[in-house]
């Protein structure tokens, strides 16, 4: 079986500034894949290209055996952007309903999915409130629920745990693991927090538009002879230069 996501020799530059340089990734079905790197390394650009919002200059990206960008395939990708893109004048439920109606879902499915997604992120009791009255964590959870609304095969989450408290961070990770283990979803998460990297099946370290190391967290630790993941990242960076 072909991998769910296949990125081959992808390069991209904005104007004269190169952002990504010869990126290769293979992500099989049901994997929790972490993209780790400092801010500005090119993580967001890479995930945007996988979603199909950006076009690569060179190379090819295939998702579910389809060449990206492809409009129809967006049905199968749930995307959670870095910022909470929510309509604050509307209630949580109205937000979910609105995004649900953008996908191919029957009325009955829509209702079921809204209930399921809201329950998963613990927002069922707050659905009737306007989003402007939500706390930061609630907004983040609602964003996650929206990314799940169409029951996509692939979830792409751009820094899902930035700016939220540790408790909520744990609960989001628990949800991600649940989705991976019980629903066999393929998940890509970007982060710059190293302790989150250890929860991923496979980690790719991105720096200055290049993947400097990749493998399971354990493999990487062995490779660089350390128990500390921060150290792995630093040593990988040194090796590169």
């Amino acid at each position, binding site marked *: 079986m072909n991998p769910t996501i296949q990125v081959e020799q992808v390069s991209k530059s904005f104007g004269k500034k190169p952002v990504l340089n010869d990126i290769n990734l293979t992500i099989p079905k049901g994997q929790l894949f972490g993209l780790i790197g400092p801010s500005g390394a090119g993580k967001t650009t890479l995930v945007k290209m996988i979603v199909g919002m950006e076009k690569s200059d060179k190379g090819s990206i295939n998702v579910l055996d389809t060449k990206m*960008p492809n*409009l129809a395939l967006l049905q199968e990708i749930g995307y959670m*952007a870095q910022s*909470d*893109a929510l309509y604050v004048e*509307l209630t949580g439920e*109205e937000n979910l309903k*609105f995004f649900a109606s953008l996908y191919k879902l029957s009325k009955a499915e829509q209702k079921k999915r809204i209930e399921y997604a809201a329950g998963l992120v613990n927002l069922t009791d707050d659905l009737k409130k306007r989003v402007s009255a939500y706390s930061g964590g609630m907004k983040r959870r609602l964003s996650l629920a929206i990314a799940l609304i169409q029951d996509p095969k692939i979830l792409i989450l751009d820094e899902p745990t930035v700016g939220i408290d540790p408790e909520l961070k744990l609960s989001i990770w628990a949800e991600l693991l649940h989705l991976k283990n019980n629903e066999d979803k393929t998940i890509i998460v970007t982060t710059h927090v190293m302790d989150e990297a250890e929860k991923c099946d496979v980690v790719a370290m991105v720096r200055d538009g290049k993947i400097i190391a990749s493998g399971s967290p354990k493999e990487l630790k062995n490779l660089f002879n350390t128990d500390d993941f921060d150290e792995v990242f630093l040593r990988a960076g040194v090796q590169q230069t």
Partner: protein
Amino acid sequence: MRILALIKRICQQMFRDKRTLALLFVAPLLILTLMYFLFNGNTVNPKLGVSKVDSQIVKVLKDSKIKVKQYDNVTKNTVVKDNLDGLLQMDNGKYKLTLKNADPTTAKALQLRVNQAVASFAQANLLKQLVTAPVSLPNKSIETKYVYGNKDTVFFDVLSPILVGFFVFFFVFIISGIGLLRERTTGTLERLLSTPIRRVEIVTSYLVGYGIFAVIQTLIVVFYAIKVLDIVLVGSIWSVVVINLLLALVALSLGILLSTFAASEFQMIQFIPIAVIPQIFFAGIFPLEGMADWLQAVAKIMPMYYAGDALKGVMYKGMSLGDISGDLLALFIFAVLFVVLNILALKKYRKL
């Protein structure tokens, strides 16, 4: 389906934002009413001081609605001190008129009337000296006919059709521009484009969603102007509605388009002096014929130029839609052009 969902969402958002609704529906009426009363104020009769002037001239002056005040002695400061608009003196057999000229329009009108009075007096005197036998003077008054309007036509009657159009244009531009801009700055537009929605679906939904409010606003403004303020309307009210709806569509698509080039609400406001205010200068308030050639060319790329021409044609000159089909076509082309550019501009967010 997706379009309906988007339209529904735009309406929900609008109804939750009471102030924006008020701005859209009440503000144009407020300004229009204010303008109406400003332009329909009564003209004040000018005050003229006279010194050693023939009583017959004084009589003529009084007949032409000038407040005349007699002086035996005048000084340099009389005009200012007594707050006169002018002072007419007889000095060594010559008439001397001093105008205060605080307001050039009043001064010009007063000067004209004084000249007329003096001239007719001189004419009568001359005739008396030349002919001893009474002769019948030819009737001096000219019979005047008007192609458009009548003798009671005031500037506001010509201005009001343009104002109606401009307010529709202005408020629809602001609301639609800021509406889509908020979607851009909050990231929801990008989020929207990560769903399988087509760019053309987004633009269509925005046109229809905000279009609903633009139609309501247009109807309110047009009916208020004509039924309540009793603004001159010779042609059909439905022609006026058609022109304004087309103009609203242009404003809507232009507002959405320009919001692409604005990074914040503040930058959107900066488009007002550049893209909106100049429009009013070319809408027909100043006659186009008097403009320099290059200015006339500039006018031709302004949607308000065509809208102003069409509205003046229907409301003041009583033309039908057929007579102004050229203007309507121009507005339509503007709308189509802006819509297509909008769809292309969304590529900034998603290449597909």
